[in-house]
């Protein structure tokens, strides 16, 4: 039995060495230990400008990457853009001011952007992403005249218009990908429209609720595919595999109305449906 304990030690040593080497290799290869992401911040506030700003036209184009947009309760803030990531090329940001209107243009080849907007002015927003995603969250701090989100090639958009959010026209477009929508008791000053269209992919309307006496109407149209509808308190005007329409009771007489129009070329629309895992 000479040598057995030594061989046993060698076996355990080799096992532990193999584990340690694999762990170190994977740890390094996965970049877990990479240095923390760099942040760059570009902000503009009202005190830095001469003259009043009542309206901001914010136009942003990102070829590859993501944009996450939200509002904060800060009347003096016009915009704050935070660029995340290492070795990301510098974005081009310019603005002009005329007659109370501030026109901001942002262009970036790639990157992940956090855009924070203030509560003291009305915004007209247009965000276009070539490949990637756009996520916008409208809250009681946001006053939006129009919002256009466009994914030109591939990717998804997510829009949440939550309680107290004020807007007139929201337009979402995606070529190939998906749109996720959530409309929960927005603050409607006048008749408003939410329009979403995907050429290939799907639209998921997670929830659609209004504060009475506002009225709401939802139309959904799919060219090839299907619609999964849960009317949840709405009157069903039409419900087929490819076309649906639902309304709140008394929609015609409502003082303010919100129309939601969903269209998909090839794919599906899910309205008030729980997430599906794809298992039968």
């Amino acid at each position, binding site marked *: 039995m000479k040598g*057995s304990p030594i*061989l046993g030690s060698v076996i355990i040593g*080799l096992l532990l060495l*193999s*584990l340690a080497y694999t762990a170190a*290799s994977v*740890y390094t290869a996965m970049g*877990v230990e990479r240095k923390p992401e760099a942040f760059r911040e570009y902000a503009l506030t009202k005190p830095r400008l001469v003259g009043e700003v009542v309206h901001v036209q914010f136009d942003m184009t990102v070829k590859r990457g993501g*944009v996450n947009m939200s509002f904060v309760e800060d009347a003096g803030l016009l915009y704050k853009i935070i660029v995340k990531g290492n070795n990301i090329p510098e974005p081009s940001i310019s603005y002009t001011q005329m007659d109370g209107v501030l026109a901001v243009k942002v262009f970036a080849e790639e990157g992940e952007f956090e855009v924070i907007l203030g509560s003291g002015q009305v915004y007209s927003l247009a965000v276009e992403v070539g*490949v990637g995603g756009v996520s916008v969250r409208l809250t009681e701090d946001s006053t939006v005249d129009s919002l256009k989100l466009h994914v030109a090639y591939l990717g998804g958009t997510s829009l949440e218009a939550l309680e107290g959010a004020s807007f007139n026209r929201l337009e979402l477009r995606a070529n190939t990908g998906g749109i996720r929508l959530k409309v929960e008791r927005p603050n409607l000053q006048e008749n408003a429209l939410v329009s979403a269209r995907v050429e290939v992919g799907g639209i998921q309307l997670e929830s659609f609720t209004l504060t009475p006496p506002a009225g709401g109407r939802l139309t959904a149209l799919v060219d090839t595919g299907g619609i999964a509808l849960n009317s949840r308190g709405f009157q069903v005007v039409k419900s087929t595999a490819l076309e649906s329409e639902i309304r709140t009771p008394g929609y015609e007489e409502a003082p303010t109305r919100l129309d939601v129009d969903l269209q998909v070329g090839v794919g599906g629309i899910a309205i008030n449906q729980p997430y599906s895992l794809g298992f039968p």
Partner: protein
Amino acid sequence: MVEMSSGNPQQPLSADLRMGFLSKLGGTLIEPIHTFDRMLDEGASFLGALAAVALIFGILGGMAGMGIAKLAAAFFASTGPWLGGAVFPQAAVQLFFIFPIALGVLSFVCVLLFWLISSAISHFCARVVFGGEGSFAQVFTLQGYAATPFFLVAVGLALGWLNLFLLPYAAFLGLTAVFWTVLLLVIAVERSHRISFGRAFVSAFVAPLLVYLVLFTGLTWAAPLMWGGFWG
């Protein structure tokens, strides 16, 4: 609590002559007949074999989990910019820990189950068919130690990480580990039941193989029927 011991109470050994864990591991590889006989004489507890299996297959599962975590991270990294870069690398840190731990535990549990069933089949065959005289505890304990050559698979995986060109050697080490383990499984049954090598081979290798073959064939045949019953 049920004590499980594979020993022979007629031949006690003094504490200083008893084999340690490392001697059992090493001895299983270089002198399996002598080592297994000593273990039987000492009444070696199955806990040592359990520790060996847990160590070897826990580490193997952990290493496999790291490989999967790496692949998953590479997938997220490639889709990261498309998804706005939101997924990676935050998810990588979690993946690095979740996959290896999960696979390490899963691997140990699966091997434990496999070891239990295979030992039971081997023991049943050796005892009932060939009139062996050993106990289940003896077969279970010795067959646990028989998995020792699988440390070679861990070494092979590490070589693969070192350099992809060494992967053929990893495959060779894996095959060696399998053949060596089969040989030790047979010796384990032979020594515990005191039957011939040929009978031990049938008990330790052929019988479990046949049972698994019948089991999987049956499952393959029954699965569509069960599926139809559930969803049809």
